[in-house]
């Protein structure tokens, strides 16, 4: 392929069109409500990348990538996991409880809460599996319904049994030093959670693309009846995919809690909107697993930059949610428009 042809293909590819389209519509929203885009966008870029903010963006990339896998893994098996918030919160509160209540030796004090958080998140997601496979209740509904009480449960635990005494603030005490995730290099934000989640993402990409399990998950997602006919235990595969996704969400929660400020602050896990930023990123990457980390990076920049835009240009950061929502809708529309064009030849 020649260079101009390649360039043309990249520019016309669905994700690029979706992002550009969403940003164009968002600019329109800005103009309608009287926000100056020439002030807002530079503030957004500065807020995400310059003035020492890059560190913070990288730190936010970690849980967002974790949540992206939490959504992408079940999606490969055809299950929509929208309950990321509940799995995230339960994973976080489990890790915090373990670190606070059980005296653990160094290293174990980090590893065990992370593993426990992942298990707890996986368990919460797995509740939805039999509903979907045996009772035909769509996972998109059951995961979401389970999520709300799961967030409430975590909130209750943090406010009462695990609360820091005599402060009246809805947070746990600081976790013991042994449970603090070590920092990377000289950073004050980026912990070893980054290489951990990157390695796990690589592991998932390998399983997805190169192993029998990965093939069975994809086959289940593409045509469940056909996969069943081919001898795949589809119900078990779907359950495994949901639990695996939940485990990534639980791990993301544990990584947040074991990182600065080393405690579970009520609402701090769900308020930044990692779950739906991740959903938008995965749909933007549309079925190309390798593109997921790239899409997550892009949307994390938007999300963190949005906060900078609010500080500097006074533009509400919720604008980034508008961008994400538009991206999802445009990606969905492009997918069918292209498919139909392909059929016509």
């Amino acid at each position, binding site marked *: 392929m020649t260079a101009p042809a390649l360039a043309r293909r990249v520019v016309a590819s669905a994700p690029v069109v979706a992002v550009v389209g969403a940003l164009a519509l968002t600019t329109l929203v800005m103009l309608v409500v009287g926000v100056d885009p020439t002030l807002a966008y530079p503030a957004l870029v500065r807020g995400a990348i310059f003035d020492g903010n890059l560190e913070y963006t990288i730190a936010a990339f970690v849980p967002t990538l974790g949540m992206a896998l939490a959504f992408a893994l079940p999606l490969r098996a055809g299950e929509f996991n929208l309950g990321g918030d509940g799995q995230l919160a339960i994973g976080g509160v489990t890790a915090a409880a373990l670190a606070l209540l059980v005296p653990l030796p160094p290293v174990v004090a980090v590893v065990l809460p992370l593993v426990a958080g992942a298990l707890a998140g996986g368990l919460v997601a797995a509740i939805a599996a039999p*509903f979907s496979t045996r*009772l035909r209740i769509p996972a998109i509904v059951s995961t979401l319904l389970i999520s*709300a*009480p799961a967030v409430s449960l975590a909130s209750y635990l943090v406010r009462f049994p695990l609360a820091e005494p005599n402060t009246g603030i809805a947070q746990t005490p600081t976790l013991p030093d042994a449970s603090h995730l070590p920092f990377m290099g000289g950073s004050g934000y980026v912990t070893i959670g980054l290489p951990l989640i990157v390695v796990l993402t690589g592991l998932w990409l390998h399983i997805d693309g190169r192993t029998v399990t990965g093939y069975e998950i994809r086959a289940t997602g593409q045509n469940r009846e056909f996969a069943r006919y081919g001898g795949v235990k589809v119900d078990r595969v779907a359950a495994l995919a949901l639990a695996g996704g939940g485990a990534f969400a639980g791990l993301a929660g544990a990584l947040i809690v074991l990182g600065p400020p080393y405690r579970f602050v009520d609402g701090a896990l769900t308020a930044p909107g990692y779950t739906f930023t991740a959903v938008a990123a995965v749909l933007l990457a549309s079925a190309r697993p390798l593109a997921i980390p790239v899409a997550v990076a892009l949307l994390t920049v938007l999300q963190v930059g949005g906060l900078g835009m609010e500080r500097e240009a006074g533009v509400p950061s*919720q*604008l980034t949610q508008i*961008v994400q929502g538009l991206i999802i809708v445009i*990606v969905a*529309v492009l997918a069918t428009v292209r498919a139909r064009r392909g059929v016509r030849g």
Partner: protein
Amino acid sequence: MNIFEWSFLSGVLTATAPVLLAALGGLLCQVAGVFNIALEGQLLWGAFTAVVVSDATGSAWAGVAGAIIATVLFSGLLSGASVRLKADPIVVAVGLNLLALGLTAFLMRQIFGSGGTYSSPDLAGLPTLAELGLDIPVLGPQSPLVPLALLLVVAMAWWLTRTRSGLRLRGAGQHLEAAEAVGLPVAAYRHGVTLAAGALCGLAGAQLSLGNVTLFSEGMSAGRGWIAVVAVMLSSVLPYRLLLACLLFGVAEAFGFRLQGAGLPQQAADAAPYVITLVALVLAAVWRRRSHEHA
């Protein structure tokens, strides 16, 4: 008569009304074979636009009309993308729910100058039936939209089973090819029900922000649109069963509210409607499975 019980029943109806109105929209879509999970975003958008228009005009009824118009327009995105352009309705709905959350939070800050919760003396709430001279128990403290919602249940049940157009709509939902073969305009039906669901979600939103309370707060739909989706799943597309499912949610919310008053933590009250809805959904699915096996 025990005032406690009347006020509890009244609380149940108040909690039920917005969910029921949204669920009626979802039911209509289901009848025509459209799986509409954008109810949550539309409910939120309706609640927001109702408050914006009521605040600007000082008239609650203008707010209701504004919410209906604005939410029909919003649902036009869903019908355009998923019916006209045949995009995946689930993915589009996920995007629209997120868009509604972002748009309302963003516009709230731009229009009212701050986030969180907005209430003001300029904001006109819907009158109660008692204020309109109809001081009867249970319904007295409700807005006129509450009896309207109940009437719509009856009207929809009648329309879907007793009229030619209602039967045609059901036919279009049950067997797409057959409906097309006899010349029914299936695509037009699907656009129609999606937009009608938008109007009902607009009403639901207005009831939530101008009837149940007189304020707007970020994310105030708080999962009610999803509960409405579940109610549709529980209803077997029968309007009276839909009413029962929504009442179940209303009882759970009103009961949670009472428990909170009795000293139970707020989190338990928050979780109660979801847990009860989920349990009902599971029980109904188990029951349906059993009856299939016996059949």
